[in-house]
C-alpha cells in the first residue's frame, strides 16, 4: 500500500470503517447527492479555498492563537498546557469554521435559505451570522429546554435576523432539533440548505464538516512546532457531535506519538442514567442518518442524554470518532458536570479566560491527563468556545447569581 492509502487522514466517507453511511428518507437523497457533488467540485476548486481562507482571515479572525496557561497547569501535574483559542473566533466558537464553509457551498448550489439545529446556540448563532453576511434567510431549530438554558444565544440569533423555533417534540433538546431540521428540509429542499452543525448525520456531512474544521489542527500543528519545537504529547477536546475534536485531531492522525483524547459529558456520572457519554456507555446503532455509537435502550430507542452543557447534550457522536475509537487511535473518556465546572472556575481564576462549559470538559480531562502524563508532557487543548453564553448557568452554579439570574447582594 502507498502512504496515502494507509493515512488515517485519507478517509472521505461515506464509511469510516464500519461507521457512517447514509440512512435517510428517499426524499432527502437527491439533496444529499447534490450537496456531495457540489462539495466534491468545490474541494477541487482553488477559488473556493481562496474565498474560504479569505473569510477565515478577514471575518473569523484566523489563525486563532495559542495561549500557554502555566498557572492553570500547576493544577494539572505541572504538564505544559497550551490552548488553541477557538473561543476568540468571531461568534465565539469553532462552529463558525464549518458554517462559513457550508454557507459558501449553499451559495454555489443556489440555495437562499439556511436552516440549522443548535444545542448551546453557538452553531445557531454562527449560522444566523453567515446568513446575515450572505443575505440569506435563516431558521434555527432549538430544543425548548435549550432555549431556556441558553436564552442569551436565542436573543443573539434573533438580533441577527434569524427565526428561532423552539422544538417541543421528544426530549426537547438537541436531538429533537435535528429531527425537526430534517423535517423542514424534506419539505423545503428546493430552496433550503440544511447547515448541520457537527460531524454527524448522513454522508457527506461527517466528512465535509470535518474538512471545514480541520484548519484548527493544521494551524495548531505548525504553531506547536514553532512554539515548542515539537509535536505535543497529547491533544484534548470535548466531544458532543465531535466537530471541534475532529477539527484539532485530524492534522495529527498520522502522528502516532501524539495521544488523542476526547472528553464526553458524563453529567451526573456514567453509572447514573443522566449522562451523554456516547462512546463510553453506548453501542453502535443508526441515529440521524449514520451508524455510530449512541445511547439507546434494548429496542433501539434513543435514550435521553443529560449534561450541564447544552452543546454536549447529544446521545450520538460522529462516525469518524466511533471509528477512531474502534481502531484505538483516539481515547474517549467521561467528564462529570462537577469536574467540568471545577475546571471552568479554575480557568477563570488562574488565567482570566472564561471558557464555554463544553470546553471546560476538555479542561477537566486535561487536568487529569496532565497528572497522568507528568511534568514533562506537553498537552494541546481545544478551547472550542468562550463562556459568555454560560455566564448565567455558571453564575447560578457557583451561586454568584440568584435563581432569577440577578446578582447576589
Amino acid at each position, binding site marked *: 500500500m502507498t502512504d496515502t492509502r494507509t493515512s488515517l487522514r485519507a478517509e472521505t466517507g461515506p464509511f469510516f470503517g464500519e461507521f457512517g453511511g447514509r440512512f435517510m428518507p428517499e426524499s432527502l437523497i437527491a439533496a444529499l447527492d447534490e450537496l456531495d457533488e457540489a462539495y466534491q467540485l468545490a474541494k477541487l476548486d482553488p477559488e473556493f479555498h481562496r474565498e474560504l481562507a479569505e473569510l477565515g482571515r478577514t471575518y473569523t479572525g484566523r489563525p486563532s492563537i495559542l495561549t500557554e496557561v502555566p498557572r492553570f497547569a500547576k493544577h494539572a501535574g505541572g504538564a505544559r498546557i497550551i490552548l488553541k483559542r477557538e473561543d476568540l473566533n468571531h461568534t465565539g466558537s469553532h462552529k463558525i469554521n464549518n458554517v462559513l464553509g457550508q454557507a459558501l457551498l449553499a451559495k454555489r448550489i443556489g440555495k437562499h435559505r439556511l436552516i440549522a439545529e443548535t444545542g448551546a446556540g453557538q452553531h445557531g448563532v454562527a449560522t444566523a451570522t453567515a446568513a446575515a453576511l450572505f443575505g440569506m434567510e435563516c431558521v434555527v431549530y432549538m430544543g425548548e429546554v435549550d432555549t431556556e438554558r441558553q436564552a442569551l444565544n436565542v436573543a443573539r440569533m434573533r438580533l441577527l435576523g434569524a427565526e428561532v423555533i423552539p422544538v417541543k417534540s421528544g426530549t426537547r433538546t438537541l436531538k429533537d432539533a435535528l429531527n425537526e431540521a430534517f423535517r423542514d428540509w424534506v*419539505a*423545503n429542499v428546493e430552496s433550503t440548505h440544511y447547515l448541520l452543525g457537527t460531524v454527524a448525520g448522513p454522508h457527506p456531512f461527517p466528512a465535509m464538516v470535518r474538512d471545514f474544521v480541520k484548519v484548527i489542527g493544521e494551524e495548531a500543528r505548525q504553531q506547536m512546532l514553532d512554539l515548542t519545537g515539537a509535536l505535543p504529547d497529547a491533544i484534548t477536546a470535548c466531544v458532543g457531535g465531535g466537530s471541534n475534536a475532529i477539527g484539532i485531531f485530524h492534522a495529527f492522525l498520522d502522528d502516532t506519538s501524539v495521544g488523542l483524547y476526547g472528553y464526553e459529558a458524563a453529567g451526573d456520572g456514567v453509572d447514573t442514567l443522566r449522562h451523554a457519554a456516547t462512546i463510553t456507555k453506548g453501542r453502535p446503532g443508526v441515529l440521524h442518518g449514520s451508524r455510530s455509537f449512541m445511547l439507546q435502550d434494548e429496542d433501539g430507542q434513543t435514550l435521553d442524554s443529560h449534561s450541564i452543557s447544552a452543546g454536549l447534550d447529544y446521545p450520538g457522536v460522529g462516525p469518524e470518532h466511533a471509528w477512531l475509537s474502534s481502531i484505538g487511535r483516539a481515547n474517549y473518556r467521561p467528564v462529570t458536570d462537577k469536574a467540568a465546572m471545577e475546571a471552568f472556575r479554575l480557568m477563570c481564576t488562574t488565567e482570566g479566560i472564561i471558557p464555554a462549559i463544553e470546553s471546560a470538559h476538555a479542561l477537566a480531562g486535561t487536568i487529569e491527563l496532565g497528572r497522568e502524563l507528568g511534568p514533562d508532557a506537553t498537552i494541546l487543548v481545544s478551547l472550542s468556545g468562550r463562556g459568555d453564553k454560560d455566564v448565567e448557568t455558571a453564575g447560578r452554579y457557583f451561586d454568584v447569581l440568584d435563581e432569577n439570574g440577578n446578582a447576589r447582594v
Partner: protein
Amino acid sequence: MSDTIVSPVASTIAAAKTERAGALVGYLPVGFPSLDASIDAAVALVENGVDVLELGLPYSDPVMDGPVIQAATVAALEAGVRLRDAFTAVERIRSRVDAPVLVMTYWNPVLQYGVDRFADDLVSAGGAGLITPDLTVDSGADWLATSDRTGLDRVFLAAPTSTDERLRLAVDSSRGFVYTVSTMGITGARADLGTAARALVARLREQGADSLAVGIGVSTADQIAEILSYADGAIVGSALVKALADGGVPAVARLASELAEGTRR
C-alpha cells in the same frame, strides 16, 4: 419488481384493482392508545374496507413523521410499548382478519433486534413484510438478503426528487408495492395533494412499476378516488390516527368505511 417470490400484498392490491378502483392501505401505530386498542382499531380498519395494514412501530426519532403521528407514537412509547409488541399485534390481528400486515419501522430498532431475528419473528407472527422510511435500497444490502431468504415483502419509498436511476432501483427492489411519496414533506393530512404524485407515478410506470401506492397527506375519499385513477393503492395514515385519538375505535372504523368509498368510484 422481484417476482420469484409471490407477494401477498401485491396480490391483494391486484385483486382490489380488478374488483374496485384499487386498494386502500391504512396506517396505525402499535400500542396507541394501548396495545389492545391498537389491535382492535387495526381489525376495525380491515372490517371497514382497508385492504392492507401498515402497522407503525413507535420510534423515538421519527424524522419522516408529522405532529399527529409523532404525538401518537410518543404516547405509545410513554405507555411502555415494546418492539416485541409489534409481533404480538401482527399475530393477533392476523388471527381475526385476513388482510396482509406490513410493519413500518425506522431502521435502528430492526438493527438492534437483529435483521434476521426480526424477519424470522415477523414471519412467525404472520406478517407480510416491512416498510422502511429511512432505509433506501443502496443502504439496505442486509435487508435485501434477509427478505429474499424469508420471502418477506420490502416496500421502499420513491420521492418526487428521486432520479430515474433511483426510481428504477426502488421499483426493481421493492416487493409488495412501491411507496410513492406524494409531496415533498412529512406525514400529515393535506388539503391539496398537487400534481407531484401523478407525475411521479408516471415516472415509476416508465421504470416498470406494476404495484404502487401513493401516500403522505391523503385524508379523504375524494383524494383516494383521484389517486386510484392513476395508482394501484392509496395510503392513509395521519387522518386515521387522528380519528383514533379523537373518537376511539368507533371513530376510526367510521372513517375507514368512508375512505373505502373512494375505492369504489
